[in-house]
């Protein structure tokens, strides 16, 4: 489904931020990317959506019409076509605060409608009805007309998921979807994502190994730009120590890594 091959990103001084990253994500998978802050998790995600350039390697997937996209080597219209197949679940705080919840969900479809139409007319009633279905799925149908900025962190995260669902992507990229949430909210977000992953696979970055262990099907661990583990989400404390260095628990929970779309 999603094929990441030999992804490498070097700074001009030769230092490798991403070093030969390769993996596949297949149907039905819920893959968690673990790693300390600055390990390259977010950068990998950014590279997949084409928000950052890479020195070497490629990201390949096949679109709904059978067209093959290489997001690392295209731009402009081609890149926009590719992007509408990728449902990025951003941190909830990256929604447009002064739009209503429903308007934010409908942004998910912007890549599929003509720019002139979205400028002059906006969305059709049928699109709004479909967006309501997505909102209902995350349990926020009653919030449709609310201003997004007035929602809580957990609610915004659900809206971000509804937006990605409404986009009807081939696969999802989740950018630390539970990083800024309390344990109860985090748990309910994971319960939303798990069944979603069975329909279209999810690749997500996480900082909570215990959550990942319970909900994900596979773990990719990145350390200093290299994949050091690819396999079962059941990690021993020894493996966790290896991933996070010495301060396992500290690094895992306290680390607030720059998010996927961060600077």
């Amino acid at each position: 489904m999603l094929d990441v091959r030999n992804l490498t990103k070097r700074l001009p001084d030769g230092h490798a931020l991403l070093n030969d990253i390769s993996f596949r994500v297949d149907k039905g998978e819920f893959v968690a990317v673990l790693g300390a802050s600055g390990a390259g998790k977010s950068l990998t995600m950014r590279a997949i959506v084409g928000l950052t350039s890479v020195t070497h390697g490629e990201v390949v997937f096949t679109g709904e019409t059978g067209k093959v996209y290489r997001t690392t080597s295209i731009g402009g219209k081609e890149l926009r076509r590719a992007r509408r197949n990728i449902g990025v679940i951003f941190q909830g705080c990256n929604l447009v605060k002064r739009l209503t919840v429903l308007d934010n969900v409908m942004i998910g479809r912007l890549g599929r409608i003509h720019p002139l139409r979205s400028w002059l007319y906006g969305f059709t009633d049928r699109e709004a009805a479909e967006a309501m279905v997505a909102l209902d799925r995350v349990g926020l149908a009653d919030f449709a007309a609310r201003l997004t900025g007035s929602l809580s962190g957990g609610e915004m995260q659900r809206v971000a998921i509804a937006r990605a669902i409404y986009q009807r992507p081939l696969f999802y990229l989740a950018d630390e979807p539970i990083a800024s949430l309390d344990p109860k909210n985090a748990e309910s977000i994971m319960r939303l994502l798990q069944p979603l992953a069975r329909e279209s696979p999810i690749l997500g970055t996480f900082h909570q190994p215990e959550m990942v262990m319970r909900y994900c099907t596979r773990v990719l661990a990145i350390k200093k730009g290299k994949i050091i583990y690819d396999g079962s989400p059941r990690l021993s404390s020894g493996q966790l120590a290896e991933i996070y260095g010495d301060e396992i628990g500290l690094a895992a929970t306290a680390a607030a890594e720059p998010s996927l779309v961060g600077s």
Partner: protein
Amino acid sequence: MNWSDYSPRRYSRHALSVAILLAVIVAASWLCEVNLSDLIKGFSKGLSMLGFFFPPDWSAFSEMLQPALVTIVICLVATPIGATVSILFGLAGARNIAPPWLRLSSRSLIAVERGLPEIVILLLLVAAFGLGPFAGMMALAIGSIGMLGKLVADAIEEIDARVLDSVAAVGATRWQVIRHAVLPEILPSLVANSIFRFEVNIRASVLLGAIGAGGIGYELNAAINQLEYSRATVAALISLLLVFLSERGADYLRAKILTSRSLA
């Protein structure tokens, strides 16, 4: 720093600065030919003149309504035009939307517009459009861009880059990002600022009217030139009323908009 910094004696240290300041003031008044006896004479003359202004000639009131309406219309047209164009200047002047060369040229143009007083803009426009309400309207619109364009550009630059990235990531074009993320974020404050600008424009248009842009300011100036002081009083009172009402109305509307849910 010690306790003596707070003692009353610290003022004595400023004695020299005060002496220099006084000397400058004396020298300046000598240069500008300030004459105290002229001031006193002019003041008493002005007081006796005040009698000419009262009572107001209320019969002129009905004739003044139409010019007053012209003043309002000039501002009602100029402000929205200025606000609309300022969105374009704001987009072109925002670091996160426009390339550096475009940002620099837009920002410079806005700065020039802001630097020129409306009267100067009007005098420049009169050469092209002649005297009258249209030139006044144009001058106010251009003046509004100077202020609103800068506010829009600054507001756009304050939008979190991640919000814009998150919209671009669904495959939206740059213009779709502007329509669905940038505009919704800046429109409420733009409308609120435009309402404030409308109030400023009402004030400025009285002045522009006096030098020939029509409206109530023109009537005021004409009445004084024709020595019809009691008529001038009515025009002045109407201008005052316009300014007062636009200020009250603007405050009310601005409060309503800033607390409202959404505009786009």
